[in-house]
């Protein structure tokens, strides 16, 4: 739970929130067996929003974003992503997954493929992009995350921060409209956290719709337009970052902030 600051002016010219809905979650509930992990979640995400979801461990924040691309199944309520409702219809699931990118805590790169192959795999097989074109797209995004020279290496030969940036590039190669980040910096050394955050900020500057589960409160203050605080499977408080950090309302939020900001 650190507060890594990126010392540069953030370009806000493309960061605009439209009034078009990207994700709408209504009365969503989820159980693991009999354990009620997510309780009556209602959340509307508009295109261009940069939402940070914070909360103590076990509060259901990862489960929430994993429900959005069906890595977890919800049992009640409704999730609509980009106009498509998530049901058990496999066609809808595949459609949503190819439009929603996801970055994991442990990168989850494919260790038997090179960096370039990691990035071209989904475009070639899911989008049916010709190999040559897919490789050009992949190199474009690898340059964007500043590691084009590693393209022919295997994931095991890269540092954690580099691997996470490859994972981001791999998601971007599918040209997603929404990006989900599930604690992208939690498995990294402090100096590597910075390079990954820098990549995420760059993405935000381009106007990407982002949902980030993270403990990086510095990132939340600088980039997010909304912070959601969760505890015990429910949304406890949400607000714009300034208000959220300076003027928390709920007791639980106050306690959490005082603990992680170390005052």
């Amino acid at each position, binding site marked *: 739970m650190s507060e890594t600051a990126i010392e540069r002016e953030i370009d806000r010219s493309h960061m605009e929130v439209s009034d078009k809905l990207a994700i709408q979650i209504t009365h969503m509930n989820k159980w693991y067996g009999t354990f009620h992990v997510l309780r009556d979640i209602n959340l509307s995400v508009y295109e261009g929003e940069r939402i940070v979801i914070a909360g103590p461990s076990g509060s259901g924040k990862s489960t929430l974003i994993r429900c959005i*691309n*069906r*890595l977890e199944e919800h049992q009640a309520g409704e999730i609509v992503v980009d106009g498509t409702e998530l049901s058990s219809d*496999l066609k809808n699931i*595949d459609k949503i*997954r*190819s439009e*929603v*990118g*996801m970055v*994991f805590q*442990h990168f*989850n*790169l*494919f*260790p*038997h493929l090179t960096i370039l192959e990691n990035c071209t*795999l*989904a475009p070639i*097989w*899911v989008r049916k992009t010709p190999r040559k074109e897919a490789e050009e797209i992949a190199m474009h995004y690898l340059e964007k995350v500043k590691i084009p020279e590693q393209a022919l*290496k*295997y*994931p*095991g*030969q890269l540092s954690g921060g580099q691997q996470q940036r490859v994972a981001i590039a*791999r*998601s971007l190669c*599918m040209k997603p409209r929404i990006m989900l980040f599930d604690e992208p910096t939690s498995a990294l050394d402090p100096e590597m956290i910075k390079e990954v955050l820098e990549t995420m900020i760059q993405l935000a500057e381009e106007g990407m719709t982002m949902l980030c589960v993270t403990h990086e409160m510095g990132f939340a203050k600088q980039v997010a337009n909304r912070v959601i605080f969760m505890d015990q499977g429910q949304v406890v408080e949400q607000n714009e970052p300034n208000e959220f950090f300076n003027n928390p309302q709920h007791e639980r939020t106050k306690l959490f902030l005082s603990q992680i900001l170390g005052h």
Partner: protein
Amino acid sequence: MADLHFVRKAMIEEQEPPAATAGVAGWVRENLFSSPLNAILSILSLGFVFYVLSALLPWVFSPTWSATSLGECRELTGGGHGKACWGVIRERWLQLMFGFYPKELYWRVVLDFALLIVAVAPVLFTKLPRKMLYFSAVYPFLMPWLLWGGSIWNPIAVAAGFVLGFFAHKYARPAFGGLAAVILAFLLPIIWWFFLAGPLANGLASVLPLALETVESRNFGGFMLSITIGVVAIAISLPIGILLALGRQSDLFIVRSLSVGFIEFIRGVPLITLLFVASTLLNIFMPPGTDFDIILRVIIMVTLFASAYMAEVVRGGLAALPKGQYEAADALGLDFWMAQRLIIMPQALKISIPGIVSTFIGVFKDTTLVSIIGLLDPIGLSNSIRADQAWNGVVWELYGFIALMFFVFCFSMSRYSMFLERKLQTGHR
């Protein structure tokens, strides 16, 4: 205070390491006599090896290559029992290789196995030109034709069934959707094989009779039989094993139960029992008059047996993969089969290589069990060779030769697996 000042006047030339630590002496010292206990163990082991070899080598090197009977061997070695009788191998090695396959047709078997090497090579060694894989695809139809003979239209009619299934899937998928296409791809070839392939092959054979002389299954024998059963069982058990392993992990209750039931049943029954079922019981269930080839029945049983073990080996590989690999594949929008083919299986199979090759080796050696149901594999042949008056009493020489042949095959498989493991290491953990 001491003088801390130092300047080198002359550089030291490169020198040889001390004799005691380099070369043969160094190696012996390092590896055999590095400590008193090690030295004692080394001397004891060397003594044991010497003892075994001093008994074995005089037996092996005996001048009996030209003998034509056991009695002649005894005369050549001066009546002692301490010498091997190699005449039996010289006289009968062709029989140990080919069984009672007609002598003038040996070339077909030799050609068949030479082509086997050509067909398998591009699968084993990815550096070879990929075009060779077309031949690998044709070979499964060519192999039985060369061995058993008969009209060339039979294998072509069987192959046509697969082509039919492929096109059914290709054209039905856009028209009727995925599931219907899969069902059609299974159903059409089955209808073809049962009702149309036979008459068509006969019809074509009467128009253009291209045929090889037929060889009956009962004439098959020796290593040729072991290799035939072993190779077919190995080649088919891997894909079936993969499907069973996936079935065992499936979310679909019926598929999972069937897979678990099959695997546990087959693993719970000795192979010999299955072979007895193949040789005797199966005929009871068949409609009277159906002639269901005994070698084919045995191959089916050995394949099922190997598949069950293979499924468990592959399941071990699947279990070793982190859950994140499945999630990453899902999150990128890959469907189940794509994820399996591109992400999961390449890694799971790589992890399972030692287990898979062990199962292969086990299957190949287990083919000797067919001697119990009367097929003349090398072990079965050794009995019939001993039934000959001239060689009655020859045991070790025959078994030694058979063991050596099996060792050559199994050891090559084991070496290949090590080569493959090294090749697939991609510099990651």
